């Protein structure tokens, strides 16, 4: 088992390297460089050249790639083009906000979708199941920006219950935090609950056909017990993996929720940096998101290994 886990870890690190490389080359593909975009069209060739050499842009691509990678390994993402501050500082002020938003939404989404998925798998084709299926299809077919927009309209514009903009930096009390976070968290979790509940249901329904579930029922176990204590541990791996994939949707969702609620998080920063072609900042954001997602997938993998006695005892 240890060797299996080590193998996954090594593969994870290699994958992260490949991802970082892709981010670097793809984002830097367009001709016309950062110095140009800082100084604008009417810069003289001399000032341009000076800035280039100052930023290290006159070096060959491969050298810049090497320096960039070395920087990341030392935890230094370079300097933002927009205002010349270190990328690390910019990120440090924004990342906790995004983590809070994503974390709270995950805490809401996972239990809700597990319960919905389990309950509808236990009674397939019941009224509850059909309703859940209908709502899930609706939720996963709706773009996140639309969910967020509708929520703003209903809970803020029409009813005025919550603020439409979530400026978390001005929050001081727990109550204030609740007021500000409710709508973004609601929007974000809604956009993943549909997908996760549906996957949980599908995985579990197949598993409930297994003879050992019947055995448990014939021992006198209730359907709930047979489902939760017998079938569920068998599908822990697939469900965790499916959830990790849903979190991919959650990361995409964060982008829209932060933009619509003007929430001061990292993805909002990233969207702005794409528009302004602030490459070092955008590359850093992309690497952080990809790394975060890879870590989630890795955790899911480890849970799947631990949940399977065949893999655990080998």
């Amino acid at each position, binding site marked *: 088992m240890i060797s299996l886990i080590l193998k996954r870890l090594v593969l994870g690190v290699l994958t992260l390297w490949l991802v970082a490389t892709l981010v670097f080359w793809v984002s*830097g593909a367009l001709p016309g460089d950062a110095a140009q975009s800082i100084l604008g069209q009417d810069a003289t060739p001399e000032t341009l050249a000076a800035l280039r050499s100052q930023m290290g842009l006159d070096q060959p691509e491969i050298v810049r790639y090497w320096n960039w990678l070395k920087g990341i390994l030392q935890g230094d993402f370079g300097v933002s083009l927009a205002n010349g501050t270190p990328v690390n500082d910019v990120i440090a002020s924004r990342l906790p906000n995004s983590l809070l938003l994503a974390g709270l939404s995950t805490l809401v989404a996972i239990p809700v979708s597990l319960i919905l998925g389990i309950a509808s798998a236990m009674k397939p084709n019941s009224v509850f199941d059909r309703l859940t299926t209908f709502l899930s299809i609706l939720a996963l*077919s709706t773009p996140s920006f639309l969910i967020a927009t509708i929520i703003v309209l209903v809970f803020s514009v029409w009813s005025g219950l919550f603020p439409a903009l979530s400026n978390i930096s001005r929050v001081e009390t727990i109550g204030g935090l609740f007021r500000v976070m409710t709508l973004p968290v609601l929007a974000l979790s809604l956009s993943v609950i549909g997908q996760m509940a549906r996957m949980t249901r599908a995985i579990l329904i197949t598993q409930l056909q297994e003879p050992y579930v019947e055995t448990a029922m014939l021992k006198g176990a209730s359907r709930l017990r047979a489902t939760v204590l017998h079938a569920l541990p068998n599908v822990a791996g697939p469900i965790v993996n499916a959830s990790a994939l849903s979190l991919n949707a959650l*990361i*995409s969702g964060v982008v*829209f929720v932060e933009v619509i609620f003007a929430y001061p998080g990292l993805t909002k920063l990233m*969207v702005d940096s794409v528009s302004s072609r602030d490459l070092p900042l955008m590359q850093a*954001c*992309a690497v952080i998101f990809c790394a975060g997602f890879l870590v989630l997938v890795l955790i899911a993998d480890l849970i799947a290994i631990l949940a399977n006695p065949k893999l655990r005892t080998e």
Partner: protein
Amino acid sequence: METTSASVTERRRLRLPNWPLLSMIGAVIFLFWVFIAVFGDLLTPYEPGEFVDSWNVLGPMTADYWLGTDYLGRDVLSRIMTGAKYTVGLPFVTAALALLFGLILGVMATLLSKTVDTAMSWLMDTVNSLPSTIFALVAVAGFGTSIPVLIIVITILYIPSAYRNVRSAAINVSKMEFIDAARVRGEGNMHIIFREILPNIIPNLLTHFGIMFIYIALLLSGLSFLGLGIQPPEADWGALVSENMVGLSYGAPAIFAPALCLLSLTVSMTLMVDAVSHQKKDR
């Protein structure tokens, strides 16, 4: 049961699919949008760029302007009809391309050596582990935004999921003994892949095409919503929602009409996917 002379396979082709009502409704809605995507430009009641009613921006639904007017006083219905070619067409094209390349790479991985297969699978897993919106943003930053760039980037992002799907379906089929039978007969790989395996995984490919279509439609409209997808003066439905956001507080139809169209498109595809995957299971 009693059709002894008529070929069963022919009968199967001519018959309407035996789908539940809801999925048939989905199919009708989807075909309607495909029709609009193809002919929408010719059928618009107004020029899509024309300021038909500049005095009444973000106007309500009226007899003249069925879905109201937008923030510049343009006819929303006409804008939606011309936007359909992007919102319906681009996901269709990219999902098809991703499926095609996924298929080709999947076949190649099987035919070439084990090392190529492992390396390919790793590369695919890597691309698959990129959060799609984030990476689309990176690509837009790198290549700028244009329709060819969007098509290429999204195709590349979705090839791995198609590849994985093709592979796992094909591996399940290749465990069947009729594949062994073909190998013993001395059949070449081409025969085995295209005659024995492929016909058996078509339902999987169709459902996966549908699922990718939905995700890509959501992704593209999302990019446009952020202003990083289809660029003005052209607009897809995501861009239409975004450019009319100022009308949110009055609940202007200019926001909700394109949003509901998008919703009807993705829901109709989900309903069709459901029907095909149920049929697959019943077999």
